[in-house]
């Protein structure tokens, strides 16, 4: 059954490319996305009872490829179909003539779903290559942005990193003689720990690059802010591409249970979050601010995943969803703003609330959600993430949240003021109805994620979670204090210039820098695991 979740989008993609009738294509696009979303919901409710296992071809033993859908995988599949449905609505009118766009979009969806469902080590390699190649082509097939330097770097780094991964899989295959993760897990747990170090380090290098961890984070934000690339693709990068790295991290942490690396990844997550915030503060490009903020949030999620306790895990899982929704909301809304204002410079966009009221309100919703304001999705996730931590970590995470607030105070400047002459003349400002629908749906989802938060957590993870009043008030106070500090800081100090700028310029690697840091990450892993054992 699970194979059809992967095969169906791909088959539809080919059909979309081949059908000559325009109207039939349009209908097929929207119907197919809706049907996929409903099917993913059905899958999720099925997996609440048992894990669904599909052996491709019904071969006995572990000879064939085995797909497994547990609750985690089903949740990610649901998120994927939801995001793709919304992106489809968003670009329905804009891209209606482009066959290639729809073809690639559906294939990308199939690759993501396959990545979340498969539990075969080599299949992950193939699907990751497909997804990065499709992403690169989607960003660059248009004439205007064909010669993008960052797109080239993105594809090359991904390919090289996947070679590291493949080498790691080779060592694992040598040790376990199988490619299925569950079966490998059984054998790996009987092996001596010292024999696992090299495959572990190689695979973790690849995952760090996929989930934009510290030394390997510079190329993902830039690829999201290629000037004329479709903003919907950038939103999907933030919502799913980075998250797929985190998902793989969870899977491989389970596989390498023998190697306990929570401390290192905790530190890595904190560093990534801090550096991501610093980078976001120094940018002037709106899209790039959002993209670097994704890095910071990925670091935060990494911290949450490595904390102890059920609540932290649930919180970071919930944050994956709420961040995907709010960040894609911000990206899509920003895309509409850029279209009207014709610039990406944060200094030049002013008065969005006045010129584009609906979009402005949606941006406000997104900012509130991502900074963790009460009644919004981000609040619930951050509440759970910080529910059980000790004091130093609590302070660190509050500081990271303060950083996020600083970034978004800077971002929120586009909302106020008076729009420039040029924009004011464009009366009435034309807004694509489909795009507006998409972002309104997303902001409704942001709100719903907060209002029905505890209920949703119970539904998604089966954890009985209630937000206690005392804790809520405590968090609210911290949040208000953070906002106040953030406002004061931005009022009296001009952040993002001077020292911070110099530091980020230093850390802003090119292609060779990224390759060197790949090797450095590998060495770090090997030495740390070798020494700490």
């Amino acid at each position, binding site marked *: 059954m699970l194979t059809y979740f992967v095969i169906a989008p791909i088959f539809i993609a080919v059909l979309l490319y*081949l059908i000559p009738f325009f109207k039939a294509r349009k209908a097929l696009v929207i119907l197919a996305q809706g049907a996929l979303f409903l099917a993913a919901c059905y899958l999720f409710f099925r997996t609440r009872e048992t894990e669904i296992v599909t052996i491709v*071809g019904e071969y006995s033993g572990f000879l064939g490829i085995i797909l497994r859908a547990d609750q985690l995988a089903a949740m990610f599949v649901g998120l994927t179909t939801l995001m793709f449905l919304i992106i489809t609505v968003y670009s329905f009118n804009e891209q209606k003539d482009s066959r290639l766009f729809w073809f690639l979009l559906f294939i990308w969806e199939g690759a993501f779903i396959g990545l979340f469902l498969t539990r075969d080590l080599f299949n992950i390699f*193939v699907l990751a290559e497909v997804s990065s190649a499709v992403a690169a082509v989607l960003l660059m097939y248009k004439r205007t942005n064909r010669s993008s330097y960052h797109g080239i770097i993105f594809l090359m780094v991904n390919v090289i990193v996947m070679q590291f991964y493949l080498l790691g899989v080779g060592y694992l295959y040598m040790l376990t*003689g199988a490619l299925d993760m569950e079966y490998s897990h059984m054998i790996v747990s009987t092996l001596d720990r010292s024999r696992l170090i*090299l495959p572990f380090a190689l695979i973790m290098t690849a995952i760090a690059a996929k989930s934009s961890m510290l030394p390997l984070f510079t190329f993902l934000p830039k690829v999201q802010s290629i000037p004329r690339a479709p903003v919907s693709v950038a939103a999907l990068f933030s919502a799913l591409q980075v998250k797929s790295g985190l998902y793989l991290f969870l899977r491989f942490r389970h596989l390498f249970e023998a190697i306990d690396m929570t401390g290192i990844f905790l530190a890595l997550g904190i560093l990534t979050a801090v550096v991501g915030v610093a980078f976001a503060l120094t940018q002037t490009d709106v899209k790039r601010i959002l993209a670097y903020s994704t890095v910071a949030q990925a670091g935060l999620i990494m911290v949450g995943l490595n904390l102890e306790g059920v609540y932290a895990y649930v919180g970071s899982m919930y944050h994956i969803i709420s961040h995907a929704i709010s960040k894609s909301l911000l990206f899509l809304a920003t895309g509409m703003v850029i279209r009207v204002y014709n610039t990406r410079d944060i200094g030049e966009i002013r008065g969005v609330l006045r010129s584009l009221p609906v979009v402005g309100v949606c941006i406000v919703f997104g900012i509130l959600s991502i900074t963790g304001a009460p009644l919004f999705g981000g609040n619930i996730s951050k509440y759970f993430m910080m529910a059980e931590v000790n004091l130093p970590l609590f302070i660190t995470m509050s500081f990271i949240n303060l950083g996020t607030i600083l970034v978004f105070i800077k971002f929120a400047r586009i909302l106020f003021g008076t729009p420039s002459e040029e924009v004011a003349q464009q009366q009435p400002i034309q807004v694509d109805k489909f795009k507006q629908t998409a972002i309104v749906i997303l902001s409704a989802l942001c709100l719903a994620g907060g209002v029905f938060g505890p209920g949703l957590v119970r539904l998604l993870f089966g954890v009985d979670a209630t937000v206690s009043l005392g804790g809520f008030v405590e968090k609210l106070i911290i949040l208000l204090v953070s906002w106040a500090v953030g406002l004061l800081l931005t009022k009296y100090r001009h952040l993002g210039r001077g020292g911070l700028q110099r530091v980020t310029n230093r850390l802003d690697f090119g292609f060779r820098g990224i390759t060197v840091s790949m090797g450095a990450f590998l060495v770090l892993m090997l030495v740390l695991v070798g020494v700490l054992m």
Partner: protein
Amino acid sequence: MIPNPMLYAILALWVFGAVCILRERRNVRVMIYLFIFSLLTSLAYFLLGSPDTAMAEAAIGAFTTIFFIVCFEKYEALKVDGPQPEESPAEKRPVGAWLKRVVAPLLFTAVIGALMLYFSPGGEVVDHLKSQYLTQFAQDVGGENAVTAIYLGYRVYDTLFEALLLVVTVLAVAHMSYSTSLQSTKQKRYLKPSVVEIAVVRAIAVVILLFGVYLIVNGHITAGGGFQGGLFIAAFFVCRFLIHNIHDLPVYKLLRLEEVVFASSVLIAVFVIFLGMTYHLPAEHLPMFQGVYMVIMNFMIGMKVACGFTILFYRYVTIERR
């Protein structure tokens, strides 16, 4: 029996080839070394007991080299109006820069290598799936070639994605290359082939085509298969280009043909393998059914690969070069 000294000699040459590529500055020579390297790789695969991959690598190496040559040629042609100086003569560099640019990366790489070799797990190789594959494949999937059985039976799911990636590549090249139209309109005349060339290539083209078909049809029995056969059929079209020197293939139709073939191979795989049809058929018809399935699947993959690489070759050689 394969003698081991030969394998080690080839591997030593292989490493040496990589070093040569590393040391070489001139683009043309890099291309030649790359081609030789790919041939050596192919030989090494063969000596490691894997003729299927060897064949695939040999054919792929030729095509990749063509693409690289076109890329270099274009670069050399465009570079003239670019201002940057290439290949600066061996001027005196300060020692510090030399340390930073050569020694430090070398040390870094050496550290990585030492760590990798130190932590290399080694020990006994676990291979209990291997014996299962070797004893069961004839019954489960059919044919006499275990590699093709895995490629088309046990792991056909992977194969579909690989075919998909090739489709995406062809579409990307067709849409991303310089010219927006899918069909080239202007005919640029290159060096006209001589009489000898035409006669020989004509004769060889037929042999190549036959060999490609042979590989596809016999893919489940001996080495070879859809992918390798498809590459040879694409080579037939390359021969056609060499003789006629014009770009007159209907690229758009080929693209559609490729997509249709891909879609139908997905359908076949779904109906035969994913639904587990081999378990529901009566046992006496099974071998014939399996044979037919493998030939058809190989044929589909072959056709798709042939279409794809023909399009790639024509795009690169006739349109990208302009």
